[in-house]
Every structure is written in structure tokens, then in C-alpha cells.
């Protein structure tokens, strides 16, 4: 990986980055209550007595949330702590009904793990290992709405108590690109595991970005933490901005304050949210309402057995067993939706053409990665429901059998997307089939050559590039339905 350096007046600076990613755990109920967690519900409709911190209410851990966090830890090869404990983080805010957040400071559920991230799509094996310090589970807070009333703020507690995983990296990243790759890889793994939907717009995943700068080889500098950054692009912007700002501060004789900052997506800048002096004293202590969390071997075995094939393993298998290029394998395995679509179409295609998956893997990969998306993007009135596995496999099979040309396949797909009709029927009724009948093609070729005797003369005299003219004339005469390979072959033979 090329080194990312900031050119300051006093020389080169290195940026040091650590990320704390908050990922909302996919579960029907909240971390310590039975209330629902669906996004976008009417305010305060998903609030139990526990979430509203009514007097005498007690938290009870939701096993599914713990299971998801453990599975996530296993997916990054992390230490799973069979004994962990919940702590209270105490502070007052209107979106925090209990007056404390139940979190895990002293004994987190998941210890050290790592992610291997690649910066080059063409060379996914060239990776850098980013350490993960820990994953702990904690409650989310509610939401304040300041735009509902001229003088009052409204509180929506739907999100209050929803389970979050806080995934804390080590300060191992050295460029915005590495941080971006880390977040994308983490998101990919969470979505594979099914422990978080990774939806950054809806806030199910957000990052606190810790940035400091130093002269290469020096000790770590003072870091700032920019809170609640909710896209990969913004994470990279924050780093870029913060690193340059800190270099300016230091080079102008100042010192970087250890502080919490806020990102403004409109300007791409960060500003002070609170300084170290204003930092809360959270008075962490073990939550006396909860017993330590002890995991038994059967639970851990169940978590491990339920893990799917993970992105790196899948990518290797695509390369080694399906014979895909590293680039294609990387693209197809980056996201759960993409690989699921690929594998479904691959299986259906192989079945349809009666070949092994590896025989059609590359053709299906090209279709899924480039051909189909191109057509879909250009088709304005495409209906997603028509884009079925069977239809895709049908088109690829027609193409593999030589029944339709590449261009015809695209045309058929466009019609499929608009109408949901069967590919085979479309090819038939719309005349979108290519002609491979050598006798018929020979007849057309003979006619073309006879009509263009002068050109044939020229060609035979050495004007090689006239070959394309003959192909074009033949195809035109066949209304575009001639199989190009057969046409070429016959023309070559006839022209000598």
C-alpha cells in the first residue's frame, strides 16, 4: 500500500486513525426489554416500561442480541469472553430515561480480533491487518426532536434500549482509504453474519472517528474524536479534514486538544462539541440489576455452527473452485446481496444447461457484474419483481447455447424487466434468436459476395479490412440474426 502523507511546512506527517463503530444488532426485541425495534415506527410506540425507566423496572438480557454479538466476534476471529459483565455509564440527558446507559466497560463480551482489508480491487490478496480491540454490547439512547414545538423539545423513545455492538478498532489505520476499506469490510462481514443490516443512512451503523497526526516514527499525537459519522465517504472526509487541521494547528505553534468533535456534512468540516474539561465523569460501575453474563460451550458451539461462509473464504473458493478472476471474485463477495444473487443464478443456470457450476461460473459472473446491471440501469420502467433468478438463468442459458447473441440477450433482459415474460418465449416471439444454420448463411454470403464482386476483388488484392464490410452486409441481410461466429467462419472460407 502506498503511504499516505500530509505535506506540512515542516515536512511529512503521518495520520493515525482508530474507529469505534456502533452497529445496531439485528433482533426483534431490544437488548433488555421485549419492545420491538423496527425502524420508522410512530414515535413512542415501541417503548416498554423498562425502556421508559418506570420506577421498579428491571433489565433482562435478550439472548438473541448476545448471540449476534458473539457470532460477530467469531466472524472476526476474536476472543469470546465466556464471562462478561454489564456496567452502567451514568449521565443525564433527556434521551436517556434511566439516567445511565447499560454498557460494558470493564469486561466486554468480545476481546481482540482483526479484519484484513484490501485497498486494491484488482489485487484483493494484498491486504493490511487492522486489529479490533474489543466488541461490547450496549443500549442505544432515544431521540430528541427539536423542530416540533417553538420552545420545547420532544422525546422519542422508540430507539431507547435497542442493542448496539460497539466495535473498537486499534489505532492501526494510516489513511482515509484504509479507514474506508475497514468500514466497508466490517459492514460486509456484519451483513454476512446477519448481526447488523449495515444501513448507514438509517443509522444502524455509525462511526466515531479518532484521528491524530505525528511525524513518521514518532510517538502517537493527541487525538480528537469525531462522533456519529454515518457514511464511508464522511469517515474519509473527517480524517482528511482533521489530519490537515491538526497539522496546521501544530505547525502554527499550537497543540491539538483532546476533545470530542462534530462533523458537518454540508461543509465537510469538523467543530468542537465538547473539550476535555467538559468531559463527563460517567461513574461506571457494574450494573447491580444484572448478573455477570456466563456463556456455556453449547451456546458458543451453536453460535459458531450458525456462521455462514465469510467473505474472504468465499472469495478464495470462487477463485479456486469456480475459476473466477480475483477481481470478479472480490466484487461478487463484497456484499451479501450480490453473492446471494450470483449463487442463485449460477445454480439455476448450471441446472438449466446441464453443466457444472464451474463451467458457467465466469459467464454468470460477467452477466451479474456487468451485463445485467448495465441493462437494468438503462431500463427506466424496470420492475424489480420481474428480475427473477429463473429469468436471468434462462437468458444466460440461451446465450450459452448460442441461441441468442450477446446483444439479443440484453434486449431480452430489457423486455423481461419491463414485462416479466419468459426469456424463451420472448426470443421466439420477438425474433430475438440468432441463425446458425450454415446452409442458410452460405446462401446469404454467396449473394453478398456476388453483389459486391468489385469489393471481393479488392479484398483478395490485399485490402484486409474489407472483411468487416462483408460481415456487416451479411448481418444486415440476415436482419442481425446471423450467428457472428458462423458468419465469420463461412466468409473466411469463401473469400479464401
Amino acid at each position, binding site marked *: 500500500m502506498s503511504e499516505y502523507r500530509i505535506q506540512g511546512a515542516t515536512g511529512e506527517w503521518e495520520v493515525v486513525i482508530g474507529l469505534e463503530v456502533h452497529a445496531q444488532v439485528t433482533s426483534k426485541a431490544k437488548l433488555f426489554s421485549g419492545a420491538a425495534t423496527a425502524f420508522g415506527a410512530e414515535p413512542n410506540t415501541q417503548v416498554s416500561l423498562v425502556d421508559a425507566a418506570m420506577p421498579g423496572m428491571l433489565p433482562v438480557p435478550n439472548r438473541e442480541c448476545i448471540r449476534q454479538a458473539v457470532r460477530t466476534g467469531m466472524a472476526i476471529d476474536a476472543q469470546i469472553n465466556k464471562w462478561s459483565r454489564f456496567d452502567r455509564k451514568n449521565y443525564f440527558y433527556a434521551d436517556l430515561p434511566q439516567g445511565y446507559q447499560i454498557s460494558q466497560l470493564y469486561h466486554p463480551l468480545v476481546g481482540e480480533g482483526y479484519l484484513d482489508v484490501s485497498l486494491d480491487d484488482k489485487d484483493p490478496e494484498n491486504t493490511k491487518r487492522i486489529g479490533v480491540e474489543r466488541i461490547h454490547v450496549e443500549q442505544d439512547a432515544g431521540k430528541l426532536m427539536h423542530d416540533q414545538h417553538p420552545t420545547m423539545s420532544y422525546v422519542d423513545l422508540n430507539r431507547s434500549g435497542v442493542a448496539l455492538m460497539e466495535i473498537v478498532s486499534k489505532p492501526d489505520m494510516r489513511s482515509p482509504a484504509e479507514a474506508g476499506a475497514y468500514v466497508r469490510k466490517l459492514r460486509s462481514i456484519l451483513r454476512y453474519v446477519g448481526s447488523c443490516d449495515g444501513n448507514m443512512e438509517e443509522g444502524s451503523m455509525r462511526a466515531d472517528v479518532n484521528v491524530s497526526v505525528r511525524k513518521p516514527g514518532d510517538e502517537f499525537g493527541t487525538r480528537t474524536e469525531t462522533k456519529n459519522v454515518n457514511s464511508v465517504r464522511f469517515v474519509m472526509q473527517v480524517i482528511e479534514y482533521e489530519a490537515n487541521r491538526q497539522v496546521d494547528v501544530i505547525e502554527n505553534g499550537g497543540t491539538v486538544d483532546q476533545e470530542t468533535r462534530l462533523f458537518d456534512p454540508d461543509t465537510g468540516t469538523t467543530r468542537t462539541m465538547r473539550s476535555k474539561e467538559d468531559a463527563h465523569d460517567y461513574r461506571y460501575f457494574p450494573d447491580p*440489576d444484572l448478573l455477570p453474563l456466563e456463556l456455556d460451550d453449547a451456546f458458543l458451539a451453536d453460535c459458531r455452527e450458525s456462521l455462514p461462509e465469510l467473505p474472504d473464504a468465499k472469495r478464495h473458493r470462487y477463485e479456486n473452485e469456480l475459476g473466477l478472476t480475483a477481481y470478479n471474485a472480490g466484487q461478487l463477495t463484497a456484499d451479501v446481496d450480490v453473492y446471494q444473487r450470483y449463487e442463485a443464478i449460477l445454480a439455476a443456470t448450471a441446472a438449466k444447461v446441464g453443466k457444472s457450476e464451474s463451467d458457467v461460473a465466469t459467464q454468470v459472473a460477467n452477466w451479474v457484474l456487468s451485463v445485467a446491471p448495465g441493462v437494468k440501469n438503462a431500463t427506466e420502467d424496470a420492475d424489480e419483481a420481474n428480475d427473477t433468478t429463473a429469468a436471468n438463468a434462462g437468458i444466460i442459458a440461451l446465450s450459452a447455447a448460442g441461441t441468442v447473441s450477446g446483444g439479443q440477450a440484453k434486449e431480452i433482459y430489457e423486455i423481461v424487466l419491463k414485462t416479466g415474460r419468459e426469456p424463451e418465449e420472448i426470443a421466439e416471439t420477438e425474433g430475438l434468436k440468432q441463425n446458425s444454420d450454415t446452409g442458410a448463411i452460405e446462401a446469404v454470403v454467396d449473394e453478398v459476395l456476388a453483389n459486391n464482386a468489385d469489393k471481393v476483388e479488392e479484398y483478395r488484392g490485399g485490402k484486409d479490412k474489407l472483411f468487416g464490410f462483408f460481415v456487416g452486409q451479411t448481418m444486415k441481410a440476415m436482419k442481425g440474426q446471423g450467428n457472428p461466429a458462423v458468419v465469420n467462419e463461412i466468409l473466411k472460407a469463401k473469400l479464401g
Partner: protein
Amino acid sequence: MTELTELTVAAIRKGVAGGDFTAVEVAEAFNANVAAASELNAFIVATPEKAVEAAQAVDAKRAKGEDLGKMGGVPIGMKDLFATNGVQTTAASHMLEGFVPQYESTVSQKLWDAGAGMLGKLNLDQFAMGSSNETSYFGNVISPWRRKDGGNADLAPGGSSGGSSSAVSARLCPAATGTDTGGSIRQPAAFTGITGIKPTYGRCSRWGVVAFASSLDQAGPMARDVTDCAIMLEAMAGFDPKDSTSLDMPVPEWEAGLNPDMKGKKVGIPREYRMDGMDPEILKSWDDGIAWLKDAGAEVVDISLPHTKYALPAYYIIAPAEASSNLARYDGVRYGLRDLPEGAGLQDMYAATRADGFGPEVKRRIMIGTYVLSAGFYDAYYNQAQKVRALIARDFEQAWSQCDVILAPTCPSAAFALGDKTSDPLSMYLNDVFAVPASLAGLPAMSVPAGLNSEGLPLGLQIIGKAFDEQGVLNAGLAIEQRAGFTAKPEAWWK
């Protein structure tokens, strides 16, 4: 016929089941006593209609020949720390004045399911913080007991379950719920000549009980005798999946298991509880207790609980630390008091609401708790106190190799006069010195009346048992009860 309000839980249950009187007659008799005793200030809210309603249901069941339940036809007082659906629940605070829960605590629900009815919500020290009931926002409870000196000084009923102790000893109810964090059942029981047991931590669900210190809070019954405590505890106890610290164990049949024969049992006498300058009358009652248990067949052994002197300081770190966090939810945002001065922001609202909503003792404990959890002090105080707590639990563990139960005084003195200790919080805290070790160790402990002192005031003896061995505690208590012959009751001067 005996006056109905003189009957025990067991006698009421039997009389109702046998048709000697109806549950409604019982409820009305106690309702009348409650109404006549407003001077004691034992109840924050009386709910006579609830008592009658429950009694009618029991009478109807009897008419149909159905089972009446463990507490069938017994009206009780409910400490106002238990959330009661549709009935104001205040924890004796201004903060929760007017707060009406839309839910019922597990313990109170179990009691209603067992056929009990509610006479009202009993006064207590504010958020259960106090030993004399003087911290209640709704005024102190007065003990029905008076010294024999003719001075008519109003005495403390103990705390925090002082409404419960006062009401039971004054025959306003045959039994009441209490909660015990550091002696809040045992000390008031001792002050008023009644019986109260704090079971093993986790026996009774904390769900729906306003929290003071979560790792210590435990509900229990307060009644006139050991048998009634056994009956009522059976109705209150049981695993509750809504409380993560609840014990997932079957509830033993304590009532059926009652047996005062102490043959083959060893009773430990902890030498560290014999403190310098102790009231000789307390020492004498302790000696009486030893003699009674010997008479019941027990062997008495000296034991050592070496870390006893650190228990009170550790308790006054751990309990306030938990309280400071547990009480953070009272912020004026969602329910309870909201004090919103003109033009106030969020912080101003917090400050005004909490300044107004909490009394001085609650504030003192929130401040202590906040301090001991603060950065830089956490290790020196909270962590250290947790270590002490572990050592105290170990003391008891070691003692169980030598004895089955431990006998000690419940309190260092008899009831004091209201106002005597209000200016000196430390001397007030010292009331809990014998009660707190069992709380820190989560052990079952009970106070039974041992007799009257020279001033005519009741003294209590405490029995501490092994974890889960409420039966052993109840049995030793019964042995003492049968020999103490405690029949004294306060003159009904308030009527």
C-alpha cells in the same frame, strides 16, 4: 368472639375458610382501625374499597367451594415502595407524589393472587432511606409504643418499613410487606415488637419495587409471629423471569416445615457483635435468647465474624453508590414531579426538579454515591467496599462450618424518640450495625420479639441463616417465640 383485628394471619385464614366470619367482616374491621389511626400516619393512602373488594372475591370463592389461597381473606398493608396498578405509589417522596403506576409489582401481585387484599399504601422513609421514618415527605410515622415514663414522647417506629411496623403492631393490619436493604424490615420489627424476615437475596422479585440499592434490596413479610411470616413469605417468594437476580429455585413449604425443636442444631454467637458500651438490656435479651435456644435443644458455640466492623462503612458506600444511579431516572422528563422554572433549559429543569423532589437524606446519599463512583475515587471507595463485602460473605461461609444459624441482637438499642437522631446522620446509621452484615452477604435474617426493656419498649433478637435456609431461621425464631412468651401490645392511645 375475639376481636377480629387481634387475630393472626393464620387465624384469619382459618376463620374465613371455616366460616367463623367472612373475609369482608375482617376487611371492614381492619379498615375501621386504619381509619381511626390517622394520628400514627402509618398509611400514605388507605384503600378500604380494595380491601373489601378482595374480601368479597374470597367470600364468593368460599361460597363456590374453591380454594381460597395461601392468604385467603387476609387484608394486608403494602409498603409504598411496591408499585400498585392504579393506586398512587410514591416511595414517600415528593418526586413521585401523585404517580399512579399502570403495572403491579410481582410481589404484590402474588399476594393478591394468594387471596390477600390491600388496606392501603404504607408510609416509609423516603426511597427507603432512613431508620426512623423521619425522611418521609408525607410526615413521620409514629410508633404506637410509648415509654413507661409518662412523658408521652413520640417514638420512632424504625425504618425504612416504619409504616409497616407501626401498622402491624397497632393492629391496623395483621401483616404488611416490608423491604430490607440494610435492616429496613428487621430494625422496625424490633422497635415495635413484631416479627419480620428478610429472605435470601433473590427469593422475592424486585420487579415493580422502587429501587434503592439493587444488590441489597429484598422484600419480606412483617407480621405478628413467625408462623404468619412463613405463610406470607411463601406467598411472596418465587422465581421471576423479569428480575435477572431472582433465584430460579422452587419455593419451599416453610409453613409446613415449621419445627421449633433445635436438637442437633448449632447456634453461633458472633463475638464481634458484642461491642463496647453496649446497652446492658440488649445484652441481657441476647443472653435470654441463648438460654431459650439451649432450652430448645440447640448447642451454642462462639464464632467469629472478623470483618464485622467494616460492614457498616462498606454498606454506606455500596448502597449510596447504587442509589445515586438508580435515582437518576427521576429527572422530570417522563413522570413524577417536573419543576420547570420560567425560561429554564434542560439542566435547569433537572436541578429544580431534583432539588425540590428529593429530601435531604436522599440528597445526602445521592451525593455520597456520586462521590464514591467518581473518577479517582472509585478504586479507593467502591472497589474497596466490594472487597470488604466479599470478605464479610466469607466470614459467614466460614462460620457455617461451626453453626447452623447465628443469634445476635437486631439493634443496638430500643426505639428512640423522634427527632433524637435527625441532626446526626452517623448515629442514625449506627442503628443498622447488626443488620447490615447479613444484607451484604445476601443471607436470610429475621427479627423476633424478645421482651420489653425497663422502659416498657420491645427488644428484638436477630437470627441469621445460611443462604436459602429460611426454614432454619424460621425454626429458630419459632423456638425463641415459644419461650419468650411475648404478648405485650401498645395501648391504643390514638383511638
